[in-house]
């Protein structure tokens, strides 16, 4: 409990500090977008030394709340807005990201249908041999409740079905990567831009998970990266917004493994 309160105090202090430099544009939200937003902010500030951009993580939902409470100018959201949120915010797609299904390189499965993928995560398919792999248990790895990556996965793959309670839960893309790297029975999902050479991406319904296929719309497991505001953003925020959507900003995102907005 002490830890929690300490965190609360830190956040309060952080918010206090934020208020004191009110000229900086505050961008808060999804930890999936955070590294990209930080990179963009760095370049933007290098070009506009008088302006400031502060990027903070916290998660998609936390970002939306921060915008609603005027604690942030722009919220970062790595999932579609829910119906009840749509009226409240204005959202702009700044990039698209594929959701890669990753397995250990020792796993012989190359291809899965969406149906099979769903079965693997609901726990209906318990053995890799049922989907054409070697005989052995399946260990699905999921992300924690509330993660934008998880919500996109549920939206795109699971539909109404629930992710098995037996699935291992990890709290970051990095932790999922680490686990799949070491466990030949594991299957996980993560941001396409963050998959390293130590993992193998599985084809879904016969389509290779690449940036080109996401852009062409053939690879179905893709999600938008959103910048969310309430009403019209302020002048400084709008300026940063324009930079992100400019040719240069989009090129930066592309070079980091994302797919451009249009």
């Amino acid at each position, binding site marked *: *409990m*002490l*830890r*929690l*309160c300490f965190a609360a105090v830190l956040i309060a202090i952080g918010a206090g500090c934020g208020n004191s430099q009110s000229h900086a544009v505050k961008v808060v939200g999804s930890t999936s977008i955070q590294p990209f937003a930080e990179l963009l902010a760095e370049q933007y500030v290098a070009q506009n030394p008088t302006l400031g951009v502060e990027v903070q993580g*916290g*998660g*998609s*939902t*936390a970002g939306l*709340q921060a915008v609603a409470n005027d604690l942030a100018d722009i919220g970062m959201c790595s999932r579609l807005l829910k119906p009840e949120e749509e009226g409240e915010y204005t959202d702009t797609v700044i990039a698209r990201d594929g959701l890669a299904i990753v397995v250990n390189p020792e796993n012989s499965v190359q291809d899965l249908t969406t149906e099979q993928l769903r079965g693997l995560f609901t726990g209906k398919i318990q053995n890799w041999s049922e989907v054409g792999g070697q005989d052995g248990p399946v*260990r699905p790895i999921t992300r*924690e*409740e*509330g*993660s934008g990556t998880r919500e996109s996965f549920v939206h795109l793959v699971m539909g109404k079905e*629930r992710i098995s*309670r*037996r*699935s*291992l*839960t*990890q*709290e970051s893309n990095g*932790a999922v990567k*680490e*686990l799949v790297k*070491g*466990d030949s*029975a*594991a299957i996980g999902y993560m941001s396409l831009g963050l998959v390293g050479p130590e993992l193998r991406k599985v084809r879904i319904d016969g389509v290779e998970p690449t940036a080109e296929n996401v852009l062409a719309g053939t690879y179905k497991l893709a999600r938008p990266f959103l910048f969310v505001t309430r009403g019209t953003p302020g002048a400084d925020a709008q300026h940063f917004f324009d930079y992100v959507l400019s040719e240069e900003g989009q090129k930066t995102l592309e070079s980091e493994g994302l797919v451009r907005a249009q």
Partner: protein
Amino acid sequence: MKQDKLIALALLMVAFSAVSGLALITVFIFKEGLPIIVKTGPGNFFLSSDWDPSSGNFGIFSMIAGSLAVTVCAMVIGTVFGLGLAIVLGEFCPPGLAAILKPVVELLAGIPSVVYGFVGVVTIVPLIRTYLGGPGLSVLASSIVLGIMVLPTVTSISMDALRAVPRSYWQGSIALGATKWQTTHMVMLKAAKSGIAAAIILGMGRAVGETMAVIMVAGNTLEVPHGILDPVRTLTSNIALEMGYASGQHREALFATGVTLFVIIMILNTVALVMARRGAGEGRTR
């Protein structure tokens, strides 16, 4: 004299503000957490394993079971090694070696928990996966990590308890012809038993409350574990995993998880305090 009073008053205020901080925390988490327990119904909240915040199911039984399983196994490891260390350092070890070993054990307390978790993920988890099977992230992995983390607590408090036993007991037993080991386990350990129990319970408090290291090595599934190779989610890791995103009822349910944890730790600490007092009382009457 006037200065004395002023200082006493100032110190009283400092002490009071620390205590009131604790009181505020208590009031706050109960205020945030209790309503959802009442709303879900204590039966559903504590005895159901169905935790699915997005569809409004809040059952924390699997996490209570997970916390208990991890804590009990960790204390078995922590007690065996911690008490063993305390006995060796206090009774058998040459003073020169003890002077090196004791600070080393105490140093363990200063290592941040992420480091323990990281070492666990990189070393213990793959070993378990390769040689014992299962996903590696498991009750066993968390217990080993936690067992090491509670060593300093268990060792140093047990040592103090052993040292508090009057030296005449030791001398008397040796004079009667008992060996050193017979004296240790039949006289010293018995005389110090309430202090040792307090050491174990305080260590248990630390094990129940540890979060970061456990998240990294426990696997965090929502299933009640059936064996020590199954992954688990503890109460603390549930809060830390989902805190960042939670809002509304989900957030309240996390606070309610905190309430549960708070009550468990309060019970453990009270038991430890009572045991320590009883131990002190026994010491005086003899």
